């Protein structure tokens, strides 16, 4: 069986770690690097930095944070927000990121996914999907922190992105994000069933049992956690000890 990754997700606005509900109503929590370092020292498997306003303003301001992080934190760092071109991606990788996550840029120009995968390798490219459930039970992909509709069906979009060469999907439920009510298990299941690349479930974890449920029900490969870690409602150690008790394969 696969080994599941515990991933700390840090959403960033103007150099601050922020946290909202449904990706909106943002609160400042502190310096992203300080949080990342704490998680690294306590054994987190991976870090995701998401610049939450980069897409709106067509810029990426994360370089300094990435640099500081990669000087002292030796686990994979994925960075997303505002990546529109090969040059943007190269810039972020040269700052010290290991993978890049892309949403708006890919929706506007799906071929970019192919170009990025060819240039940097599939395993460097993560498709970031912000999913909202529709009345008919399907999900629509959004951009700009769940604000803008794309008209894309999430499952179909993920299948297409896999064909274009992405190596991984960060799947965020906008409906559940920040609510602490649990993941959108159906969403994660639906994408996982139709794709053959690793899926990271994101949005909604409020208790340890949610972690177990999403891993066991949806066959996801990683779980992104924000709220519970940033507000110290749990620790990496607690999550991992719990997972081992539940027979989930995990790096202890």
């Amino acid at each position, binding site marked *: 069986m696969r080994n599941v*990754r515990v991933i700390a997700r840090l959403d960033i606005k103007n150099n601050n770690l922020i946290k909202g509900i449904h990706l909106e109503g943002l609160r400042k929590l502190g310096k992203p690097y300080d949080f990342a370092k704490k998680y690294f020292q306590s054994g987190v498997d991976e870090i995701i930095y998401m610049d939450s306003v980069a897409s709106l303003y067509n810029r990426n301001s994360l370089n300094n944070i990435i640099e500081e992080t990669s000087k002292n934190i030796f686990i*994979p760092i994925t960075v997303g927000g505002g990546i529109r071109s090969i040059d943007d991606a190269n810039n972020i990788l040269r700052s010290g990121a290991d993978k890049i996550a892309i949403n708006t840029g890919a929706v506007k120009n799906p071929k970019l996914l192919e170009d990025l995968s060819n*240039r940097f390798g599939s395993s460097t490219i993560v498709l970031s999907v912000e999913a909202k459930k529709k009345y008919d039970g399907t999900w629509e992909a959004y951009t700009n922190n769940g604000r803008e509709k794309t008209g894309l069906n999430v499952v179909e979009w993920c299948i297409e992105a896999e064909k274009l060469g992405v190596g991984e999907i960060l799947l965020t439920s906008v409906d559940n994000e920040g609510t602490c009510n649990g993941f959108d298990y159906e969403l994660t299941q639906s994408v996982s069933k139709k794709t*053959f690349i690793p899926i990271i479930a994101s949005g909604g974890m409020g208790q340890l049992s949610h972690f177990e449920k999403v891993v066991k029900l949806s066959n996801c*490969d990683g779980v992104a956690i924000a709220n519970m870690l940033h507000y110290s409602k749990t620790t990496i150690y607690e999550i991992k000890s719990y997972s081992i008790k539940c027979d989930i394969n995990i790096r202890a």
Partner: protein
Amino acid sequence: MKEIAIVDYNLGNITSIRRALSFLGYKSIITNNPEIILKSEKVILPGVGAFPTAMSYLKKYDLIEAINETVKKGNDILGICLGMQLLMQFSNEFERTKGLSLIEGDVISINDILDDNIKLPCIGWYKLNKTKDNTLLKNIKKDQWFYFVHSYMVNCRNENDVIADYSVNDISITAIVKKNNITGLQFHPENSGIEGLKFFTNFCKS
């Protein structure tokens, strides 16, 4: 010690490797200049990317000769992930492509050897199984976890070249190869926490 040359072939996370070396106090230079590579006693062939693209880049910038010369002179070379796979004779990634042929064997898809296909790339932290005694593993505790991300794997012809492996679905996947002054790591020591950094220390000190 002289600067360590990190061969730049225009692909993935090269800066991470440089930062890891500098954290340990080693100077390095990211370069695609064959002359700098030839002058370096330690050469790192990093790697996240596709095999054919990487080989054609190495060819275009006259880096294949520089790497061969490095090995012939007895200088140490360390291939990481794709960099390790490039050391082999052939790869089946996309199309059958000739590699650097410094170690006998080829590169195949992980799913070529599994009965039940797994999701690729295989991404995650795994423990090494069998490890032969080697200076490369000095001070590295048994039972440590290392970060892997790959879809293709090395298939060595000569069992003696394999220093360690790891398991996915009970299938053995080569994790470390070593032949004289040539070393390859399938996992990413730069992404494998403090324990991973020890591989760089051992490589730099050897």
